[in-house]
């Protein structure tokens, strides 16, 4: 036990480097996924067939072929055609494309479930389609989609653990190095799983805060400052943040 702790302390600089790679992949991958999800989700939900059909095809394509296939395609196949990307870019691209396609379904579904009356009201106020989406529909859809996006982000975080197969030295890669000098159980179950679990919890808390903020801006629920203040105004404030695990 003591030897394990000592070995972990010695390996810490490497583990921290690995954690940093994992965090970068998660944050950049999620950012790319979100941008793609909004574009593809709006396309797939559009009235025009010329937008909706390509949107659907792209979503189904990236959802239907597995993450690892996409990762390998970008890593092994593209270089044969002269597209040689750095490992980090490969990882972010594959994660962003794959989870972006899943998230696009969430975006499309959330926009579709904004109440009919809201859409009709924007017509009555003769808002332009862009104005309508930006000021009325999307803010409401955003509050609806955050819990699902949060669970997809946790999925993406867990998906990053595969990137050592494209030679990236992420947290899982350094866990494997740690395993060589400590017990398997210690390296994977204690340091590894607990490390990822903490990352996932932090991610979930951040997304809960985002959801509370989005709801507050729609006039539903308390503001973030009220929730985070040491003397909460009412006890059920915290529960409005929802469960996103």
């Amino acid at each position, binding site marked *: 036990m003591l030897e394990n702790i000592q070995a972990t302390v010695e390996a810490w600089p490497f583990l921290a480097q690995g954690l940093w790679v994992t965090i970068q992949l998660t944050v950049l991958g999620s950012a790319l996924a979100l941008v793609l999800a909004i574009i593809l989700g709006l396309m797939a939900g559009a009235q025009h067939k010329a937008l909706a059909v390509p949107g659907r095809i792209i979503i*189904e*394509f990236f959802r*239907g*072929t*597995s*993450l*690892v*296939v*996409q990762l*390998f*395609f970008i890593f*092994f*196949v593209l270089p*044969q*055609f002269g597209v040689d990307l750095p490992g980090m870019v490969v990882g972010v691209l594959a994660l962003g494309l794959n989870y972006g396609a899943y998230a696009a379904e969430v975006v499309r579904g959330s926009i579709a479930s904004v109440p009919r009356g809201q859409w009709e009201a924007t017509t009555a106020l003769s808002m332009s389609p862009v104005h309508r989406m930006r000021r009325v529909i999307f803010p409401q859809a955003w509050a609806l989609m955050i819990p699902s996006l949060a669970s997809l982000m*946790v999925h993406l*975080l*867990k*998906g*990053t*653990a*595969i990137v*050592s*197969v494209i030679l990236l030295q992420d947290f*899982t890669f350094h*866990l*494997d190095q740690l*395993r060589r000098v400590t017990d*398997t*159980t210690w390296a*994977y*179950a204690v340091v*590894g*799983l607990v490390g*990822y*679990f903490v990352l*996932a*919890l932090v991610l*979930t808390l951040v997304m809960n805060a985002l959801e509370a903020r989005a709801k507050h801006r729609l006039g539903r629920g308390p503001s973030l400052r009220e929730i985070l203040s040491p003397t909460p105004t009412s006890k059920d404030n915290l529960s409005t943040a929802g469960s996103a*695990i």
Partner: protein
Amino acid sequence: MQEQTEIWDWEMFFRALPPVLEGFLTVTLLVTVLGTVIAAALGLVWAMLIRLAPQPVSGIVKWFVAFIRMTPIVVQLLFAYYAFLMFDAMTIGIVVFGIHYSTYMSEVYRAGIDAVPKGQWEATTALSMSTRRTWAAVVIPQALRATVPALGNYAISMFKDTPFLLVIGVVEMVNAAQIFGGNNFRYVEAITLAGIIFLLASYPTSVLIRRMEKRLAYAN
């Protein structure tokens, strides 16, 4: 060297077909089917324990389920592989996939059990049914029907996660494609083939599940 510039080589494609298909049939499908069976059964066990077991047990199960669900299956596979050296990688893969996905499925069952109308519970009390009979004859049959599409969706996502098995050296479809590519210095055909098989197998299934979902929503 001239071959390198070709975008697509049909001969290579047909040569890649046997090893990739073998990986698909003997590993990918097998792990998906057995993993789903384990996950569906264990998921129900977790859901029932969380609901029915006395406090310390149900709390522990709840945390265990959350912990497994929120940590990467890749690390779980590596852990189980090195911790249980007496089992072969394939068995480890099936069991780990089963346990990992059981934590998702327990959520599905929980939602299904919660969705059984209150009147049904009251009726079992009115008929003075035993707890066992209430669950076996009234609650579970109704809860299960509503959960079938969600379970199907998780089976599909398990199917698409099976390439993770390559971290413990199992030669499933994508690993087979990669090995073939490495041996021939050409990856396009083999990896594209693996992608096509995933798409061909998962898309129709997901359409089928969506149709089932609609029919269930209509029946309610």
